[in-house]
């Protein structure tokens, strides 16, 4: 299992509240995922800016599952995205986006700005850069042929 943590590992304290779900890896569900995360995070009464940052980061990770992880649609009959979240007493939100798709061979390279394996599809290659820029912590772990897990952490402040 290869793993690259941009910053420190997410901390292990019991959360105040958590959710877990999965949905079909269909592009129409990108907005569904954002809505779910908004509804969950709104319990913390965050600022509009923090909410937008989290929605954007989650949108990136979910889109990557749909666009990249299951790009060989023939191979993955039951392509699903696994989304879960937890928040802690200090206002730290941790969202995990997981797929059981093709995996990433070189995570470091994948995370470089402008790097994309689908330029013809008008991918900007900025997904991971955007997540890293908008969150406090980002952790990516992947197993080729098994899938990828992305964990995004951000402390939100009451609005």
């Amino acid at each position: 299992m290869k793993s690259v943590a941009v910053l420190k590992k997410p901390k292990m304290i019991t959360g105040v509240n958590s959710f877990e779900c999965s949905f079909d890896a269909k592009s129409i569900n990108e907005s569904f995922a954002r809505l779910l995360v908004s509804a969950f995070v709104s319990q913390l009464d965050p600022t509009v800016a923090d909410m937008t940052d989290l929605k954007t980061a989650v949108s990136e990770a979910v889109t990557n599952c749909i666009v990249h992880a299951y790009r060989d649609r023939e191979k993955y009959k039951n392509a699903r995205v696994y989304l879960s979240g937890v928040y802690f007493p200090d206002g730290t939100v941790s969202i995990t986006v997981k797929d059981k798709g093709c995996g990433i061979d070189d995570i470091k390279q994948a995370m470089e700005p402008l790097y994309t394996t689908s330029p013809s599809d008008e991918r900007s290659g900025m997904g991971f850069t955007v997540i890293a820029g908008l969150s406090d912590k980002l952790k990516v772990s992947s197993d080729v042929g098994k899938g990828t897990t992305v964990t995004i952490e951000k402390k939100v402040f009451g609005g």
Partner: protein
Amino acid sequence: MYVNYETEGKTLTVHLYGELDHHYASLLRVEVDARIKREKPKELLLELTNMVFMDSSGLGFIMGRLRKMQKNEGTMMLVNPNRAVERMINMAGIDKFIKIIRKESVTK
């Protein structure tokens, strides 16, 4: 996501409403490119006053249309992007290639 178009001389304005993600970017790209092909504008304005959300798929869409306009020796501008959208543009470093303008009243 909702879109409408306005043509004035050689300027094509695309008014975008709602959330621009990968799902809508791939639909929008086909539509906007068909317009560009038909009208051959010299200037493309993306009017974003009411575009409330965009992720890096939106960046891909903007960069793609910019490349297309440059190839046709035309220009492209963004009108009234919100702060989050403008920050995405800066993050991608495409603020050097694309002009951002502010307009008080935008017709649709």
